[in-house]
């Protein structure tokens, strides 16, 4: 299940206005690690349907968002809940760390 791409304004709407608990992967098309992580997230997405949103930002198309979070390098997965930033995981991460982080952010 593919991830919805967010631009700057859609990011505002989903993450902040709707306060949806979500993760957003900041990735780049030609990044090898991203090519491993993105499919993994796509695979995880259905089991969180309705509970936790999965999105992506292409850092080349949306430099503003990349710079706004003072990020250095991709991939980085940022977590949000109730419009608040709740931390990130960077680089080549395992499915388990994502699951743990989601559980932590949801407070379960």
């Amino acid at each position, binding site marked *: 299940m593919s991830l919805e791409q967010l631009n700057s*304004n859609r990011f505002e*709407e989903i993450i*902040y206005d709707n306060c949806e608990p979500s993760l957003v992967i900041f990735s780049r098309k030609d990044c090898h690690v991203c090519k491993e992580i993105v499919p993994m997230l796509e695979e995880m997405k259905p089991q969180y349907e309705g509970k936790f949103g999965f999105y992506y930002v292409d850092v080349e198309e949306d430099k503003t968002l990349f*710079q706004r*979070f003072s990020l250095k390098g991709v991939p980085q997965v940022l977590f949000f809940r109730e*419009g608040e*930033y709740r931390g990130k995981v960077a680089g080549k991460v395992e499915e388990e760390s994502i699951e743990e982080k989601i559980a932590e952010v949801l407070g379960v």
Partner: protein
Amino acid sequence: MKRTALTQKLLVLGVDGMDPRISQKFLAEGKMPNLQKFIERGSARKDLHLLGAIPTITPPCWTTLATGAYPGTHGITCYWRQSPESLDAVVYNMDSRNCTAEQIWNITSEAGLKTLVWHWPGSSWPPTSHSENLSVVDGTQPGSVNMGVAQLDWEKVIVATPDIKEVRYAPRVDKPAGVGCIIADLEGTLDNEVDDEMMELWWGDTAREGGEIRTYVMDDEDTEVVIGSKVAYDIVNSPLKEATGWANAPEGAKEFTILTSGGVMRRPALILKNEAGEYDRVAIYKNKKAEAPIVTLERDIMVTGIMDDVTKKEVTKPACRSMKILELDSAGNKVRVWISNALDISNDQLWHQKSLYKDVVNNVGQVPPVSLIGGEDDELVHEIFEPSWAIYDKWQADCLNYCIKEKGYDVVFSHLHNIDCAGHQLWHLGKTLPPWDHTDEKTFQGFIEKFYLQTDDYLGEFLYLLDEGWTVLVVSDHGLIVGENVPPILGEYGGLNTKVMEDLGYTVMKKDENGNSIREVDWEKTRAVQIRSNYIYLNIKGRDKYGIVDPKDQYDLEEQLISDLYNYRDDRTGKRVVGICLRNKDAVLIGANGPECGDIFFSIEEGYNRLHGDSISTSEGYFDSSVSPIFVAAGSGIKSAFTTDRTIRQVDVAPSISVLLGLRYPAQCEGAPIYQIFSEEI
């Protein structure tokens, strides 16, 4: 020997950078009525001068005030201390454990007097007495209480208009004056060299543990006045549009977005209409679902004590901020808001006893963050920088009065940094010199006046103590001059000054392929370096890591260097710019001798000196400014309406406090009591 005390209660009101000459200018104009009352009810020299210790640098002079000893004796000889490892590096120096002279507050507390040392930037932290009567608050940097350890975020200016299409964030932008905070070229504004942790680097835990700080001052761009007058802060641009998706947005409100915490925190905000249909307020919310705002701002009013969560290095904490509307279009087409840095409200690490922190914040209020942005941008100086200090001054006065009235302190040593902080950013603009001829000296002279007037308000908060048996001493460490000329690249306190020493052939820098100097000393060819405010070190074999000068040649080389310095002519004016030069052994004459004072002491000549530090304390500058510190005493034990011709030295203050309180003198004291001003023969 026991003496009878002339007072039981004593307050030292220290004001960093307060200059008697410029004070007299405003006194004569009737603009400092509270200082006038202290003078009328007390004693001072007619010119209000205190003869400052040398060097005229903050930590040495405050340490001299506290110990009655000269810098060569107490060992705090500049802002930074020479690195024991490297001739071109400095290390942290506002650590009481480096001080080799006894502080007067140890004597007062050990004699049973409840003593408070409040943010005294010279050998106060950590406390050096175990007496339970001694309380110490910060003093690890000159700025404001907790500034060095509790900052979680940076100052920012938010600009929102309907034309801005998306939220943009640019960290730490050096904004040229007059450009309107719109991020046109985001890439161009980002500087990878930006140091996010300047406060920590200078005054934080690593610095306090002795990490080397290596700064080369090679040309005008590296000097403090040029760096200090640039303003750096985060800029946020946001669309300004109809409010949508809010739980509770008032009719007609428009929304915009504020980012904090390096961009990771987002706060939605609304501009609100009044009954006449004009936009006149800004309300900032945690999120759009929140029922009530975090704060509602009105035009022209700076609000402090605003609590909000801030995230730094992935940790989120509650912090205290101040905010102000800079501009709000009544028709709702533009808004600009300033947000202060954020102070961690849980940080009590520099409070002894820690319970005092709780008492102060619960009874007086959270530490208000001061602004450090202003510089050449006169709007920010007028709207933000100066008012933020006025708020801080009042908070500090309330804290000291709370401690006096409610906590029963008998003796208080206090320090306020407002004038010096402003002086380092603004005073050089008090004369329009070629490098800053885009500014107007009248504007900045007006700011100098504003800072003296707010200081007078601060002093006024303590006048009542004269009717309650207290003795009050108004003192400073040094004044600051408005420079007559652009100073030479010599005597800048922040690091290694290379240009003049390169011209004279003593310091040799490595060269790039084009033959230009790079930021690395060529130690194989360097015979001497000039580092910190007033010191020259020869590069001696066997003593220094890369030494090349034979110790038997030291005396002759010193002689040659001193001659060369006297003969040096400034390339802009053709004039001599070096004042006095003394070998280390001869510098005992001015108390700037000993192991921490290099091989040669020198000063910069009047007229060519910078704000303070590089010159002797009798130097005067433009706009009736001087490097001299001030001294006024009033209250119990002090003659009323009395002037003395005596030269009052900075070393005389601590022994005078001893006499006033009937206590012994500090162990290494080199000064003498100012007996002429006491109400009784001693």
